[in-house]
């Protein structure tokens, strides 16, 4: 199960499996747009995991995914999700922010 930021602000978003993240910060330090940060919360193992406080800057380039040694994060471009959405369901992809 993943956590996502479905608020469609930037060009893409990331999915984080926070329960397997080991808090190494590779994704955070090498994200080209510096849009992710550590959470304040801990996961069950006691690590901080990445969150997306600046979704407008995420391009969905998946560089974080290529860096993550724990396979705990990956990025997706909205245009790729959109392609899938059109192929599948007509409903809007992303719910409005609560």
């Amino acid at each position: 199960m993943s956590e996502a930021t479905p608020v469609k602000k930037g060009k893409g978003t990331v999915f984080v499996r926070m329960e397997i993240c080991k808090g190494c910060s590779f994704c955070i330090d090498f994200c080209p747009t510096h849009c992710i940060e550590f959470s304040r919360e801990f996961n069950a193992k006691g690590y901080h995991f990445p969150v997306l406080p600046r979704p407008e800057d995420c391009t969905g380039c998946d560089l974080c995914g290529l860096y993550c040694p724990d396979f705990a994060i990956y990025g997706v471009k909205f245009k790729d999700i959109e392609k899938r959405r059109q192929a599948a369901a007509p409903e809007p992809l992303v719910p409005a922010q609560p």
Partner: protein
Amino acid sequence: MNELPSFDANLEQEFGLINPVMPYLRQDRIPHIWCPGCGIGTTVNCFARALTDSGMDLDKVAIVSGIGCTGRVAGYMNLDSFHTTHGRAIPFATGLKLANPGMKVVVYSGDGDLTAIGGNHFVHAARRNMDLMVVCVNNFTYGMTGGQVAPTTPVGPSQTTMPYGNFENPFNLPFLADACGAVYVARWTVYHVKQLAKALLEGLHKKGFVFIEAMSPCPTLYSRRNRLGDGVDQLKYYKEKSVIRNGADTKEVGIAYQGEIVVGKFVDRDRPTWLDSMNEHYGKVFGDRFTPYGVTDGQE
């Protein structure tokens, strides 16, 4: 202030989204045993990307590891994989390749496994130009057994078997591979994820003995012991101190403690593989009585 991202567990499922590395992993074994900030998992991402980009039939790709933290890769990859004894990944892979010439055989192991106990196999497989892709994750140490000095440890840092600092001259692995006859030699670090993925892709398509060195942090037993910080600090060191020099003379790419790391593709040449040479030789000796063996490589 950081907020928890809004939770949408269904989004992935609904659109069939998945971390692109996942199909290449035995997912029941995740989370893996590697330490926080260990770079081995990053090399796995690069390898998975190379496999995707290669378009290869995964039923014809096998991965062979020796023993060590890096040796675990074979156990995590969802490919035909063999976790062999310490140092013997190359001889095992050689047998696998010669019995299944249509298979792409990848050896994925640590610096200690490949160049200490397995050093003899390494030099001879390169000399013979055995058609293998050898990926060496070089973390300057024996990770799995507690941080003993490795043939790759630079002069200076402390290791459990060199508590006052290492004084042994290390191997310059690209030079070793080059001198022994490897047809493709490259070095990248886990900071250079894209270049590493590209080198792995080129290696998958190259026929003959391919050697790719992936510099990777071992924060637990190398960095912290030497007060070099965590994994991410080693990545920052790679970023700062590496210079890309494709085609560099491999004699000049040795690494000093926390010194410059020359990265790039150093060697890319063609030479008959062991099977090519055998076929040619016996063709000459026996003429029509000899049927060439394993000429069509299924992955070419």
